[in-house]
C-alpha cells in the first residue's frame, strides 16, 4: 500500500464521495459547480488507480493490495478487497472511461446535471467495487448496485422509448442474477459459513452441485455479457440510453459478466466449467457469426454498434472457455480494447446525434465533406472495430484465434469469420454515413469537432493505437493471474 493508503478503497469511495458532493449542489442553477466537481472527482478517481499499476507486482502470485475488515459480523461477511491483473486492467479502464464520460456530457446534458453526473460517479465506484471484491456477498452487493444508476441514466436521460428499455434492462439483468444469490448462499453454507472467495476456491464440491451452481452463475453473467440468446436487452438499452450511458454500458458494464466468469465460475466450479464449456463455446460462436450478420442489416447506428458489441464479446467468452493462456489473455485484452473501441464508437455516434438528432444511417451521407477531422477519428475507430492490426481491436481477436485453434480448428475458423463480418458491418456503415456526396442540407451544415470532443476522441485514439502497437504492458500484468486461474481450472474439485 502506497504510504499506507488503502488504494482500492479510494478507487471505490472517491468517486462515490464526489457523487454525493455533486448531488449536494442541487438543482441546475449550480450546474457549473456540479460539472467541475464531477470532473475533479473523476480525475481524482483515475489518479488514485494509477499507483495500482505502478506498484503492481507482475511476478507475485495471488491477490495484491488486499484490505480486510469485518463488515456484517453475524454472516461472517467481510469488507475484503484485493486485485489481480485482470481486475487491475478493468479498474483502470473504468476510471479512465469515467473521466471521458464526464467530459463528453459537459454541455450535452442540460437538465438535472448534478443527478446525471452523480449517477456516473456512483456507477464508477460500484464497478470498481465489483472488480476488487474478494468477498462473495460484497461482490453481489456491488454487482447489483450497478443496476440502479444505469437504470436511472437510461430511464431519465434516455430517448423516447426509455421506459421500456430501462425496464427491460433492469428486469432482464435482475432476474438473471437472482439465482446468483441462491448459489452464493449455498456456497456459504457448504463452506461452513464463509463468503470469502479464497475459501470458496478451495471448497470441494460434487459435480451435480457444481453444475447447478454453474448454471446459476451462468444465467447472471451471460445476461450481462450479453451472450446469445439472452442479448436482446442490449440493443434496446443502447438505443435509448444517452451517449454517456451507452459508453459506460458497452465499455464497462458488459465486462461485469465476463469478469464474473473469470472470478467466480472458473475457480469455484472448475469441473462444471469443463463439462459445460462446449455449450458456452457454441453460444459464443453463434454470437460471432449470427450477431455479425444481424449487425450488418441494422439501420440504426447505435443498434449496429450494440450488435457489434455482442459479437465482440463472443470472443471474450470463447477465449475464457477454451482454457488456455492465449485464449484467456486474449479475452481480457479484448475486454479492454472493446472498452476503448465501443466507447469511442458510441461517442462518435453521439457527436453526430448532438448535431442531427438522428441515429439512422439513411439520414446521413457524405459527412466527410463537412467534418473531415471527425471522419478521420471515426475511420480509426471503425478500423479498430474491424480488428485491424496496429489497433487494439486486433490484439485480443488475434490471441483468441491463436488459442482456440489449439482446441479445435473449427472454433478458430468460425471465430475468424469476424475478419469478414466485422469489416463488412463496420465499413459498410462508415461508407453510408461518412463517404459519398453531401446527402442533404443538414449534413451540408454540419460543423466539425469542438475542442472538447476532440480531446475525448483524441485520448481514445491514443489508447487504441498504443494498445495496438505495444500491447506488451497490458499483457504483462496478466501472465501470473492467468496462470493462477488456469491452475484452478485444471485441478478437479470433486470430493
Amino acid at each position, binding site marked *: 500500500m502506497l504510504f499506507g493508503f488503502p488504494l482500492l478503497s479510494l478507487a471505490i469511495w472517491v468517486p462515490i464521495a464526489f457523487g454525493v458532493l455533486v448531488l449536494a449542489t442541487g438543482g441546475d442553477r449550480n450546474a457549473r459547480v456540479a460539472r467541475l466537481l464531477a470532473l475533479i472527482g473523476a480525475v481524482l478517481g483515475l489518479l488514485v488507480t494509477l499507483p495500482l499499476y505502478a506498484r503492481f507486482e507482475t511476478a507475485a502470485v495471488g491477490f495484491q493490495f488486499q484490505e480486510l475488515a469485518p463488515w456484517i459480523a453475524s454472516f461472517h461477511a467481510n469488507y475484503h478487497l484485493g486485485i489481480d491483473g485482470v481486475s487491475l486492467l478493468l479498474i483502470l479502464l473504468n476510471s479512465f472511461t469515467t473521466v471521458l464520460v464526464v467530459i463528453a456530457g459537459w454541455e450535452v446534458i442540460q437538465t438535472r446535471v448534478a443527478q446525471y453526473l452523480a449517477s456516473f460517479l456512483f456507477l464508477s465506484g460500484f464497478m470498481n467495487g465489483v472488480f476488487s471484491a474478494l468477498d462473495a456477498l460484497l461482490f453481489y452487493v456491488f454487482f447489483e448496485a450497478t443496476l440502479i444508476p444505469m437504470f436511472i441514466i437510461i430511464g431519465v436521460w434516455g430517448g423516447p422509448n426509455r421506459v421500456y428499455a430501462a425496464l427491460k434492462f433492469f428486469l432482464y439483468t435482475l432476474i438473471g442474477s437472482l439465482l446468483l444469490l441462491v448459489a452464493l448462499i449455498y456456497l456459504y453454507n457448504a463452506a461452513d459459513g464463509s463468503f470469502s472467495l479464497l475459501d470458496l476456491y478451495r471448497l470441494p464440491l460434487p459435480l451435480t452441485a457444481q453444475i447447478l451452481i454453474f448454471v446459476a452463475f451462468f444465467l447472471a453473467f451471460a445476461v450481462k455479457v450479453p451472450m446469445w440468446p439472452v442479448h436482446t436487452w442490449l440493443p434496446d438499452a443502447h438505443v435509448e440510453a444517452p451517449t454517456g450511458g451507452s459508453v459506460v454500458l458497452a465499455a464497462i458494464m458488459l465486462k461485469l459478466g465476463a469478469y464474473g466468469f473469470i472470478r467466480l465460475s472458473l475457480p469455484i466450479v472448475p469441473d462444471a466449467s469443463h463439462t459445460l464449456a462446449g455449450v458456452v463455446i457454441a453460444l459464443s460462436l453463434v454470437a460471432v457469426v449470427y450477431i455479425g*450478420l*444481424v449487425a450488418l442489416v441494422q439501420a440504426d447506428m447505435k443498434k449496429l454498434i450494440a450488435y457489434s458489441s455482442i459479437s465482440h464479446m463472443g470472443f471474450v467468452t470463447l477465449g475464457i472457455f477454451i482454457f488456455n493462456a492465449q485464449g484467456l*489473455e486474449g479475452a481480457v485484452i479484448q475486454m479492454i480494447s472493446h472498452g476503448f473501441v465501443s466507447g469511442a464508437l458510441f461517442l462518435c455516434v453521439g457527436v453526430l446525434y448532438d448535431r442531427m438528432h438522428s441515429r439512422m444511417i439513411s439520414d446521413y451521407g457524405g459527412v466527410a465533406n463537412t467534418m473531415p477531422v471527425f471522419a478521420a477519428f471515426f475511420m480509426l475507430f471503425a478500423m479498430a472495430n474491424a480488428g485491424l492490426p496496429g489497433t487494439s481491436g486486433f490484439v485480443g481477436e488475434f490471441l483468441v484465434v491463436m488459442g482456440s485453434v489449439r482446441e479445435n480448428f473449427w472454433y478458430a475458423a468460425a471465430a475468424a469469420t469476424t475478419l469478414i463480418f466485422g*469489416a463488412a458491418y463496420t465499413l459498410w456503415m462508415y461508407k453510408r454515413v461518412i463517404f459519398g*456526396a453531401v446527402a442533404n442540407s443538414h449534413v451540408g451544415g454540419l460543423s466539425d469537432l469542438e475542442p472538447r470532443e476532440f480531446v475525448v476522441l483524441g485520448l481514445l485514439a491514443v489508447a487504441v493505437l498504443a494498445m495496438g502497437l505495444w500491447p506488451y504492458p497490458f499483457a504483462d500484468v496478466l501472465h501470473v493471474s492467468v496462470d493462477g486461474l488456469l491452475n484452478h481450472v485444471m485441478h478437479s474439485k470433486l470430493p
Partner: protein
Amino acid sequence: MQLLYLIVPLAPLAGAIVAGLFGWAIGRRGAHWITIVGMVVATVASAIVFLDVLDGNIYNGPVYTWLISGNSRFEIGFLIDRLSATMMLVVSFVSLMVHIYTIGYMADDPGYQRFFSYISLFTFSMLMLVMANNFLQLFFGWEAVGLVSYLLIGFWYTRPTAIHANLKAFLVNRVGDFGFLLGIALILMYFGTLDYAAVFGSARTLAGNTIEILPGGAWSLMTVICILLFVGAMGKSAQFPLHVWLPDSMEGPTPISALIHAATMVTAGIFMVARMSPLYELSETALSVVMVIGAITALFMALVAIVQNDIKRVVAYSTLSQLGYMTVALGASAYAAGIFHLATHAFFKALLFLGAGSVIIALHHQQDMRHMGGLRKYLPVTYWTTLIGAISSAGIPGFAGFFSKDSIIEAAHLSKLPGAGFAYAAVLLTVFVTALYTFRLIFMTFHGTERFRGHGAHGEAHGHGGGHAHEPHETPAVVTVPLVLLAIPSVCAGWVIGPVLFGDYFGSAIVVAPSHDVLAQMGEHFGGVVAMMTHGLVTPALWLAVAGIVTAWYFYLKRPDLPEVVRRKAGLIYTILERKYGFDELYQWLFGDGAVRFGTGLWKGGDVAVIDGVFVNGSARLVGWFAGVVRFLQSGFIYHYAFAMIIGILVLLTMIFLI
C-alpha cells in the same frame, strides 16, 4: 547498419505523419517536399542496404517485443537478406517515382496533402511487410497495405463507384486474410513460434504430420498450412477467384494504380509464397494448387483485357494476368523467376500505368480509348516510354519482360507436378493474348485517327468538361521524368537474369527441393543473355508474341472495322468477356445481397420474433395475464371471498370424508 534498417521504413512514416496531421500547416509544397525527402532517404538507405547484402551480410534480429502470451513471444523484427533487400529496393524506388509523378498528376486536387500522406504511409507498411522476420509482422504489413489501399481507392470519396470499389477491395481481401490468419494460427500451434528462422528450421521435422480437419480425413499439415496461407495470397495478389476487386480498384487515382495495384502491394502474395518456400517445398499438393490457380488467372484475365475500352482497365487486367504468371512460377518451384518477374513487372507495369495516366492528364481525364488515337505526335515522351513498357510486357527479346516471362514459361514446361501441362499451355497461349491487348492499347491510343476531339471528359474526378479548345500537349517534367526513369529498368532489368535465376542469387532466402529445381535444369543450358535472346527466336513464345502484335496491328490499324465484325459474330463470347465471366454479379447476388437477406432473416426471425416476441415479451405477457387472473380473484367484494371460502370448505370436507 541496424540504424539504417530502421530508417528505411521510418522515413516514409515520418513523412506520412507530418503530411497527414500537419498538412494544413505546411501546405501543398510542404507536404510533397517532406514526403519526397522521406522517400529519397528510404531509397538511398535501401540501396546501401542492398549493396551491403550483396556483400553477403544477412541480418535477422528483433526491434521490440510486441507481446508475450502463454509460451509465445511475438516480436517486431527485421530479416534482411537478398530477398527482402531486393524487395526494399524495388518498393522504395517505384514509390519515389510515384511520389514525384503525383506532383503533376494531383496538381489540382484539393486532397493533395492527404494523398501524399497516404502513399508514404503505404510505403512504410509495404516496407515493414517485406522486412518482417516473422509471420505476425507480415500480417501487420499485410493488413496495413490493405488499409491504405482501401483509403486510396476511395480517395475521391464523393464518387459512388469509388466507395463501392474500396469496400469491395477490403472485404475480398479480408476473405483472403481469413485463410491467412488460420494458416498463421496452425503454424503457431505446431511450431510454437512465428519466427521465420525457427519455423523454417523445424519445418522438415514436422513435414510428416497430418491433421484431421474433417473427421476421418487425415491431411498433410504442410498442405493445409500452405493452402491456407495461399488463400491470403489469392486475396492480396488478386488470383482467381478472389480477383474481382483489382479491376474496380482503378477507381483510385492513377499514381496509386501504378504503385499499389500493379507494382508493389499486389505482389505481396507472390513475395509471401517465395518467402515461405521452405514450407511450400514440403507439399506438392499445395504447389500444384498454386500453379493451376496462377495459370487460370494468367489466361482468363488476359482474355478479358482484349475487350476493355477504359485504358486503365486494360492495364489492370494485364496486371492480373501477369500476377498469374508469377504465381505459376511459384507453383513450379521457380521462386526466383517469380520474384524476378515481380521486379521487372514492377518497372514496366508502373511505366504503363503512369504512361496511361500521362495520357489521361493530357486529355483532361478522358480514359476511354475509343476517344483517343493519334496521340503519338502530341505526347512523344509518353508515347516512346509507354511503347517501351508495352514491348517489355509483350516479351520481346532484349527487354526486361522477355527474360522473366520466358523463364516462367520454361519453368512450367519443365515442372513435373500435376497440372504443369495445363499451366504450360495456358501461359504459352497467354503470350499471344498479352501481345494482342498491349498493342491494341498502343494502337488505339497513340496511332490511327484522332478521335479525342469533341468528347467531354467523364473520367476522373475533376475533368474540365466540354470539348478541347486546344491541342493536347506533353505533360510536365514531374510526369515525364519518372516515365523515363522507369523506362530504363524496363529495358535493362532483365539483363541480370544469369546471376539472379541461375547463380544462387537468393542464397538461403529461397529453398528449393532438388527434385523440384527446374531453374537448375534451365541453368545448365543457360549460356548468357545474348544466347538466351537468340534462343528466344526459335521458341514458340516469341512467335506467339509477334503474332499477337501483328493481329493487333491488323485489327486496330489496318482494318479498324474488323473488331466490330468480330464482336457481332462472336456475340456470346464477347459478352462473357465483357461481363468478366459474371463474377461481379454472382458475388453481389450470393454474398452481398445474400448476407443482407440472411442477416435480415436472423434479425427479424430470430431476435425480434422468437427471442423477444415469444420469450421476453411473451413472459411479460404471461405475467400480465396471470396478474389479470389474480386480480379477478381479488375483486374486493366480501361476498366473492365468502363464496370462495364456502366452496373451499366444501372441497376440504369432501376430501376428508372420502379419505
